[in-house]
């Protein structure tokens, strides 16, 4: 009897043990899940807070006309003028310029590293590119102020060096590492057999690279480009030091001053209060919408490649 009883007890204990481990595992899994959820909460919180503060000035008694805000071409907080259209134009032009110059240079450099350069050279170039990627943006700004601005001042028809061109130059340098690294890895991912087949058909090395390898790595290069756009449009500190930051006017040439959205925010953030501060958040909302488009494009592209695999 006793023995049987004992046996039963141990069985029960065991099952309790099993249950506790199971519960423990479940609890731990939940903790992990909560950690993973923090990212989601952060995104939601960022959107909620920035949007709620940024959309405030367009509602209520002293509402600012949203159309005036989005189409306005003068930013003069002292006189209650908040127009951001010329900043949007500035951001878009600067980003487009950086992409037009940066992508070809970056892609060709990536091709050089991945296909042409001898290993010894790669060993020097690659760490250099990686270092370029790690240099803080304020240092790029200081560089722009010290080198690029004086040069542009000499060649520009306008009397000052702060200009759209200066911004494009610095942004190009800043997106290069992103484009080079990502394009290079997608070039390397192109199967060897592609190259062999092309070479076997009598194509030269250059023909193989430009007609076979690059098209095969298209989606990787595309996502590198879009990430580059994201970086260029979001860049703040470097741009602020070289853009000229005019208080109004759409840039009509590369020698004109610009005031990208990011600059507008950070330049006046420390000083602003009240409606002025809310308007800076509103600028942040505009910027965020742009970034959202870029992000979703990136996600779409990477998704497609993953599905293809």
């Amino acid at each position: 009897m006793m023995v049987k009883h004992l046996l039963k007890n141990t069985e029960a204990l065991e099952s309790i043990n099993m249950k506790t481990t199971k519960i423990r595992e479940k609890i731990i899994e939940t903790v992990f899940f909560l950690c993973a959820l923090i990212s989601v909460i952060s995104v939601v919180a960022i959107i909620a807070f920035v949007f709620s503060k940024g959309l405030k000035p367009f509602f209520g008694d002293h509402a600012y006309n949203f159309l005036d805000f989005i189409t306005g071409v003068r930013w003069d907080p002292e006189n209650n003028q908040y127009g951001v259209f010329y900043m949007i134009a500035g951001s878009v032009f600067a980003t487009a310029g950086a992409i037009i110059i940066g992508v070809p240079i970056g892609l060709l450099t990536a091709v050089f590293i991945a296909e042409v350069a001898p290993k010894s050279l790669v060993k020097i170039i690659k760490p250099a590119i990686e270092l370029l990627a790690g240099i803080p943006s304020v240092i790029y700004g200081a560089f722009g102020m010290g080198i690029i601005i004086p040069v542009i001042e000499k060649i520009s028809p306008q009397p000052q060096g702060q200009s759209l061109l200066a911004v494009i130059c610095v942004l190009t340098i800043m997106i290069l590492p992103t484009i080079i690294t990502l394009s290079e890895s997608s070039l390397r991912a192109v199967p060897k057999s592609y190259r062999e087949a092309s070479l076997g058909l009598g194509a030269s090395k250059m023909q193989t690279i430009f007609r076979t390898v690059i098209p095969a790595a298209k989606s990787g290069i595309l996502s590198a480009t879009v990430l580059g756009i994201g970086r260029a449009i979001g860049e703040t500190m470097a741009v602020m030091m070289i853009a000229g930051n005019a208080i109004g006017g759409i840039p009509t040439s590369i020698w004109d001053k610009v005031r990208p959205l990011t600059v507008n925010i950070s330049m006046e953030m420390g000083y602003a209060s009240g409606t002025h501060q809310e308007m800076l958040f509103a600028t942040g909302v505009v910027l965020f919408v742009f970034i959202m488009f870029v992000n979703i494009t990136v996600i779409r592209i990477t998704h497609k490649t993953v599905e293809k695999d």
Partner: protein
Amino acid sequence: MRLKKFVTLCMVGAMVFAFAGCSKKDNNTNSNNANTQETTETTTEATDAATTESSTDAAATTDGSSLSGTVVITGSTSVEKILNDMIDEFQAMNPDVTINYTGTGSSAGIADTLAGSNDLGASSREVKDEEKSDTMKEVVWAHDGIAVITNPANPVADITLENLAKIYSGEITNWNQVGGNDAPIVIVSREGASGTRSAFEELIKLEDNGGLTEDATVVEGNGNVQTTVAGNENAIGYVSFSFIDDTVKGLTVETVEPTAENAKAGTYPLSRPFLFVYDENNYTPQTQAFVEFATSDDGQAFVEEHGGIRID
């Protein structure tokens, strides 16, 4: 799945709770403040006694005695150099007092004082009418001149207020219109809400001329104005007196040299006060001691050292 939903709900609940907790805490401190205010109002005699006590305290501090606590100063960035030196000296004399100064701009400094989030606001311009409040007091502790600067290579040596306004509003665009070379003028201005900018624009009556031209290059901070002007032969900018050095040239305005003496005598037209603003309900002995120090001879020595103008 159900578990996850439950957990998510819990999370959200917890967050809401946490936020509620925070705001509750605020309420508590607020009501505490309100309470102390009430008591001070009802027992005037007691506070009188207290003030005399605290002023003796303040007097005693010069001998390095018992003041303690923190003083939070926010506001103008133009006064940074002077204030940092004053703070350094004051803290040396009162080792138990910590003073924290953050340069946030004059408008923010005044707004902080109104909101009760600092002990002392520093402003480098007059307080505007719409910023005034019954309990907010102002103390002028220095005057400052705003220098109009150009590149040393620029032959122009003098400028009139009228021409300044015309340049900054975009009416005059070439140096030869003000007696210089045939070269376009590069206008350098400061970011919106900078105390120096609003003081400068007010002094040259820029508003009457149609406001700042869109052609102006806008940079952040006195230092950036100085480097930009130093790097461009055709540039014109304005900075606080303390930022003039040999990389830029200070113009005479209406033929008056930009010197502390001239600004003090009132002949130099571009000068402005440096102010402290404080809420009289939040005027701690250590804050008072610091204000007294700033206006004392020792404090004024620092004002002079950095190109500012003494109040006496």
